[in-house]
Protein backbone atom coordinates (compact mmCIF):
# COMPACT_ATOMS: atom_id res chain seq x y z
CA UNK A 1 0.00 0.00 0.00
CA UNK A 2 1.39 3.45 -0.86
CA UNK A 3 2.59 5.83 1.80
CA UNK A 4 0.05 8.21 3.28
CA UNK A 5 1.08 11.83 3.80
CA UNK A 6 -0.93 14.39 5.83
CA UNK A 7 -0.01 17.97 6.64
CA UNK A 8 -1.15 20.68 9.05
CA UNK A 9 -0.09 24.34 9.15
CA UNK A 10 0.11 26.77 12.05
CA UNK A 11 0.51 30.53 12.23
CA UNK A 12 1.76 31.94 15.52
CA UNK A 13 2.05 35.63 16.38
CA UNK A 14 3.91 37.07 19.35
CA UNK A 15 5.45 35.59 22.47
CA UNK A 16 3.94 32.79 24.51
CA UNK A 17 2.29 34.66 27.35
CA UNK A 18 0.33 37.06 25.17
CA UNK A 19 0.65 35.49 21.71
CA UNK A 20 -1.79 33.22 19.93
CA UNK A 21 -1.80 30.74 17.08
CA UNK A 22 -4.17 29.29 14.48
CA UNK A 23 -4.28 25.65 13.33
CA UNK A 24 -5.32 24.50 9.86
CA UNK A 25 -5.76 21.00 8.41
CA UNK A 26 -3.73 21.54 5.25
CA UNK A 27 -4.31 18.18 3.53
CA UNK A 28 -8.06 17.81 3.92
CA UNK A 29 -9.26 21.31 4.77
CA UNK A 30 -11.55 19.65 7.35
CA UNK A 31 -10.79 22.46 9.80
CA UNK A 32 -9.00 25.76 9.56
CA UNK A 33 -7.98 28.72 11.66
CA UNK A 34 -8.59 27.01 15.02
CA UNK A 35 -7.24 29.39 17.64
CA UNK A 36 -5.07 28.34 20.57
CA UNK A 37 -2.90 29.97 23.22
CA UNK A 38 -0.76 29.11 26.23
CA UNK A 39 -3.48 30.12 28.68
CA UNK A 40 -6.19 28.00 27.05
CA UNK A 41 -3.78 25.08 26.57
CA UNK A 42 -3.00 24.64 30.24
CA UNK A 43 -6.01 26.28 31.89
CA UNK A 44 -9.69 26.59 31.04
CA UNK A 45 -9.98 25.87 27.27
CA UNK A 46 -12.58 28.61 26.73
CA UNK A 47 -13.70 26.97 23.51
CA UNK A 48 -10.18 26.66 22.12
CA UNK A 49 -8.43 23.44 21.11
CA UNK A 50 -4.84 22.51 22.03
CA UNK A 51 -2.09 20.12 20.94
CA UNK A 52 -3.24 17.65 23.60
CA UNK A 53 -6.87 17.76 22.48
CA UNK A 54 -5.74 17.10 18.90
CA UNK A 55 -3.71 14.14 20.19
CA UNK A 56 -6.83 12.85 21.98
CA UNK A 57 -8.77 13.07 18.71
CA UNK A 58 -5.92 11.37 16.82
CA UNK A 59 -5.56 8.53 19.33
CA UNK A 60 -9.31 8.02 19.65
CA UNK A 61 -9.69 7.94 15.86
CA UNK A 62 -6.76 5.58 15.36
CA UNK A 63 -7.96 3.23 18.09
CA UNK A 64 -11.57 3.17 16.82
CA UNK A 65 -10.40 2.13 13.35
CA UNK A 66 -8.04 -0.52 14.78
CA UNK A 67 -10.85 -1.94 16.93
CA UNK A 68 -13.26 -2.01 13.97
CA UNK A 69 -10.58 -3.90 12.04
CA UNK A 70 -10.00 -6.47 14.82
CA UNK A 71 -13.73 -7.09 15.31
CA UNK A 72 -14.27 -7.46 11.55
CA UNK A 73 -11.41 -9.95 11.30
CA UNK A 74 -12.98 -11.93 14.16
CA UNK A 75 -16.19 -12.19 12.13
CA UNK A 76 -18.15 -9.76 14.34
CA UNK A 77 -18.04 -6.30 12.70
CA UNK A 78 -19.27 -3.62 15.11
CA UNK A 79 -22.68 -2.05 14.75
CA UNK A 80 -21.40 0.91 16.73
CA UNK A 81 -18.29 1.85 18.69
CA UNK A 82 -17.99 4.84 21.02
CA UNK A 83 -14.40 5.65 21.93
CA UNK A 84 -13.45 8.33 24.42
CA UNK A 85 -9.82 9.35 24.78
CA UNK A 86 -8.40 11.58 27.53
CA UNK A 87 -4.82 12.84 27.14
CA UNK A 88 -3.04 14.09 30.26
CA UNK A 89 -0.10 16.49 30.18
CA UNK A 90 1.82 17.07 33.38
CA UNK A 91 5.03 18.61 34.59
CA UNK A 92 7.54 15.86 35.33
CA UNK A 93 10.36 16.73 37.68
CA UNK A 94 13.56 17.31 35.75
CA UNK A 95 11.88 16.72 32.39
CA UNK A 96 9.48 19.62 31.99
CA UNK A 97 6.00 19.16 30.51
CA UNK A 98 5.23 15.72 29.14
CA UNK A 99 2.30 13.76 27.78
CA UNK A 100 2.05 11.28 30.64
CA UNK A 101 -1.16 9.33 30.03
CA UNK A 102 -3.75 8.40 27.44
CA UNK A 103 -6.92 6.79 28.74
CA UNK A 104 -9.24 5.06 26.28
CA UNK A 105 -12.81 4.03 27.07
CA UNK A 106 -14.26 1.86 24.33
CA UNK A 107 -17.97 1.09 24.38
CA UNK A 108 -19.34 -1.32 21.79
CA UNK A 109 -22.57 -2.54 20.27
CA UNK A 110 -21.27 -5.68 18.57
CA UNK A 111 -23.75 -8.43 17.59
CA UNK A 112 -22.38 -11.90 18.32
CA UNK A 113 -19.46 -10.68 20.43
CA UNK A 114 -19.33 -11.20 24.20
CA UNK A 115 -17.57 -9.05 26.81
CA UNK A 116 -14.45 -11.23 26.89
CA UNK A 117 -14.06 -11.28 23.11
CA UNK A 118 -14.60 -7.52 22.98
CA UNK A 119 -11.94 -6.94 25.63
CA UNK A 120 -9.58 -9.21 23.69
CA UNK A 121 -10.23 -7.29 20.45
CA UNK A 122 -9.57 -4.01 22.28
CA UNK A 123 -6.26 -5.35 23.56
CA UNK A 124 -5.28 -6.37 20.04
CA UNK A 125 -6.41 -2.97 18.70
CA UNK A 126 -4.19 -1.21 21.24
CA UNK A 127 -1.25 -3.38 20.20
CA UNK A 128 -1.81 -2.66 16.50
CA UNK A 129 -2.81 1.02 16.53
CA UNK A 130 0.39 2.80 15.49
CA UNK A 131 -0.36 5.76 17.71
CA UNK A 132 -0.76 3.61 20.84
CA UNK A 133 2.72 2.20 20.27
CA UNK A 134 4.30 5.60 19.65
CA UNK A 135 2.85 7.54 22.54
CA UNK A 136 4.28 5.00 24.99
CA UNK A 137 7.61 6.84 24.51
CA UNK A 138 6.46 9.21 27.27
CA UNK A 139 2.97 8.09 28.32
CA UNK A 140 1.13 5.14 29.78
CA UNK A 141 -1.91 3.90 27.85
CA UNK A 142 -4.96 2.43 29.59
CA UNK A 143 -7.83 0.77 27.71
CA UNK A 144 -11.21 0.14 29.38
CA UNK A 145 -14.05 -1.68 27.65
CA UNK A 146 -17.79 -2.00 28.10
CA UNK A 147 -20.68 -3.34 26.03
CA UNK A 148 -24.39 -2.83 25.78
Amino acid at each position, binding site marked *: MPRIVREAGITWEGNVARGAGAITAA*SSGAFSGLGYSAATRSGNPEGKTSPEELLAAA*HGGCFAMSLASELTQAGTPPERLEV*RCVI*TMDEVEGKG*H*QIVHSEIDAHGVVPGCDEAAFAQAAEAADARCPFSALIRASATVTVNTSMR
Partner: protein
Amino acid sequence: MATDRTATVTWQGSLMEGAGTVHEVGSGAFGPLDVSWPSRAEQPNGKTSPEELIAAAHASCFAMALAHALAQAGTPAQQLDTSATVTFQPGEGITRIALSVRGTVPGLDEAGFAEKATGAKAGCPVSKALAGVPEITLDASLA
Protein backbone atom coordinates in the same frame (compact mmCIF):
# COMPACT_ATOMS: atom_id res chain seq x y z
CA MET B 1 -0.78 20.79 37.58
CA ALA B 2 -1.97 18.12 35.20
CA THR B 3 -4.06 19.11 32.20
CA ASP B 4 -6.63 16.73 30.67
CA ARG B 5 -8.03 17.05 27.14
CA THR B 6 -10.78 14.80 25.81
CA ALA B 7 -12.13 13.65 22.46
CA THR B 8 -14.88 11.17 21.62
CA VAL B 9 -15.06 9.16 18.42
CA THR B 10 -17.91 7.01 17.14
CA TRP B 11 -17.56 4.29 14.51
CA GLN B 12 -20.15 2.22 12.67
CA GLY B 13 -19.47 -0.96 10.69
CA SER B 14 -16.34 -2.69 9.44
CA LEU B 15 -13.04 -0.92 8.84
CA MET B 16 -13.21 -0.90 5.05
CA GLU B 17 -16.91 -0.19 4.54
CA GLY B 18 -17.76 1.58 7.79
CA ALA B 19 -17.27 5.19 8.78
CA GLY B 20 -16.63 7.21 11.89
CA THR B 21 -16.85 10.66 13.37
CA VAL B 22 -14.61 12.63 15.69
CA HIS B 23 -17.85 13.36 17.44
CA GLU B 24 -16.88 15.90 20.04
CA VAL B 25 -13.88 17.44 21.78
CA GLY B 26 -13.85 18.79 25.31
CA SER B 27 -13.27 22.38 24.25
CA GLY B 28 -16.01 22.31 21.62
CA ALA B 29 -13.55 23.95 19.19
CA PHE B 30 -14.32 21.55 16.35
CA GLY B 31 -16.47 18.59 15.41
CA PRO B 32 -18.16 16.54 14.38
CA LEU B 33 -15.49 15.64 11.80
CA ASP B 34 -16.01 12.59 9.58
CA VAL B 35 -13.28 9.95 9.23
CA SER B 36 -13.08 6.77 7.14
CA TRP B 37 -10.45 4.27 6.06
CA PRO B 38 -10.51 5.24 2.34
CA SER B 39 -10.11 8.94 3.21
CA ARG B 40 -7.31 8.05 5.66
CA ALA B 41 -5.40 5.80 3.26
CA GLU B 42 -6.18 7.39 -0.12
CA GLN B 43 -7.42 10.86 -1.07
CA PRO B 44 -8.73 12.80 1.94
CA ASN B 45 -11.75 14.22 0.05
CA GLY B 46 -12.21 16.86 2.71
CA LYS B 47 -11.98 14.42 5.64
CA THR B 48 -9.41 14.58 8.39
CA SER B 49 -7.52 11.52 9.71
CA PRO B 50 -5.49 10.49 12.77
CA GLU B 51 -2.30 11.40 10.88
CA GLU B 52 -3.57 14.89 10.02
CA LEU B 53 -4.61 15.41 13.66
CA ILE B 54 -1.14 14.31 14.80
CA ALA B 55 0.38 16.77 12.32
CA ALA B 56 -1.79 19.53 13.79
CA ALA B 57 -0.87 18.55 17.36
CA HIS B 58 2.85 18.43 16.62
CA ALA B 59 3.06 21.65 14.58
CA SER B 60 1.01 23.59 17.16
CA CYS B 61 3.11 22.27 20.07
CA PHE B 62 6.36 23.05 18.21
CA ALA B 63 5.21 26.60 17.37
CA MET B 64 4.38 27.33 21.00
CA ALA B 65 7.67 25.91 22.29
CA LEU B 66 9.63 27.98 19.76
CA ALA B 67 7.71 31.16 20.60
CA HIS B 68 8.54 30.53 24.26
CA ALA B 69 12.26 29.98 23.61
CA LEU B 70 12.52 33.10 21.44
CA ALA B 71 10.78 35.26 24.03
CA GLN B 72 13.01 33.92 26.80
CA ALA B 73 16.10 34.83 24.73
CA GLY B 74 14.89 38.42 24.49
CA THR B 75 13.95 38.16 20.79
CA PRO B 76 10.20 37.43 20.69
CA ALA B 77 8.79 36.32 17.36
CA GLN B 78 6.60 38.64 15.36
CA GLN B 79 5.27 35.69 13.38
CA LEU B 80 6.00 31.97 13.03
CA ASP B 81 4.55 29.85 10.21
CA THR B 82 5.04 26.18 11.04
CA SER B 83 3.90 22.96 9.45
CA ALA B 84 4.18 19.26 10.18
CA THR B 85 3.89 16.60 7.51
CA VAL B 86 3.23 13.09 8.82
CA THR B 87 4.02 10.04 6.69
CA PHE B 88 2.14 6.85 7.54
CA GLN B 89 2.99 3.48 6.04
CA PRO B 90 0.12 1.02 6.57
CA GLY B 91 1.46 -2.09 8.28
CA GLU B 92 4.49 -0.18 9.59
CA GLY B 93 3.12 2.93 11.28
CA ILE B 94 4.26 6.53 11.25
CA THR B 95 7.68 6.50 9.60
CA ARG B 96 8.46 10.21 9.28
CA ILE B 97 7.42 13.67 10.50
CA ALA B 98 8.80 16.72 8.69
CA LEU B 99 8.62 19.95 10.71
CA SER B 100 9.07 23.27 8.94
CA VAL B 101 9.12 26.85 10.21
CA ARG B 102 9.52 30.31 8.69
CA GLY B 103 9.98 33.02 11.28
CA THR B 104 9.90 36.80 11.44
CA VAL B 105 12.06 37.55 14.46
CA PRO B 106 13.53 41.07 14.79
CA GLY B 107 17.11 41.11 16.07
CA LEU B 108 17.90 37.43 15.46
CA ASP B 109 20.13 35.89 12.75
CA GLU B 110 19.66 32.58 10.91
CA ALA B 111 22.06 30.66 13.15
CA GLY B 112 20.34 31.87 16.32
CA PHE B 113 16.93 31.01 14.90
CA ALA B 114 18.04 27.53 13.83
CA GLU B 115 19.40 26.87 17.32
CA LYS B 116 16.12 27.85 19.00
CA ALA B 117 14.10 25.81 16.50
CA THR B 118 16.25 22.72 17.14
CA GLY B 119 15.71 23.12 20.87
CA ALA B 120 11.94 23.50 20.46
CA LYS B 121 11.80 20.40 18.27
CA ALA B 122 13.56 18.36 20.97
CA GLY B 123 11.72 19.78 23.96
CA CYS B 124 8.05 20.21 23.08
CA PRO B 125 5.82 17.66 24.85
CA VAL B 126 4.39 16.25 21.61
CA SER B 127 7.93 15.69 20.23
CA LYS B 128 8.76 13.77 23.40
CA ALA B 129 5.61 11.67 23.09
CA LEU B 130 6.44 10.91 19.44
CA ALA B 131 10.13 10.20 20.08
CA GLY B 132 9.66 6.70 18.65
CA VAL B 133 9.06 8.01 15.12
CA PRO B 134 12.10 6.80 13.13
CA GLU B 135 12.74 10.15 11.42
CA ILE B 136 11.75 13.66 12.55
CA THR B 137 13.28 16.35 10.33
CA LEU B 138 13.40 20.13 10.73
CA ASP B 139 13.62 22.87 8.12
CA ALA B 140 13.99 26.26 9.86
CA SER B 141 14.71 29.65 8.34
CA LEU B 142 13.88 33.31 8.77
CA ALA B 143 11.23 34.74 6.46
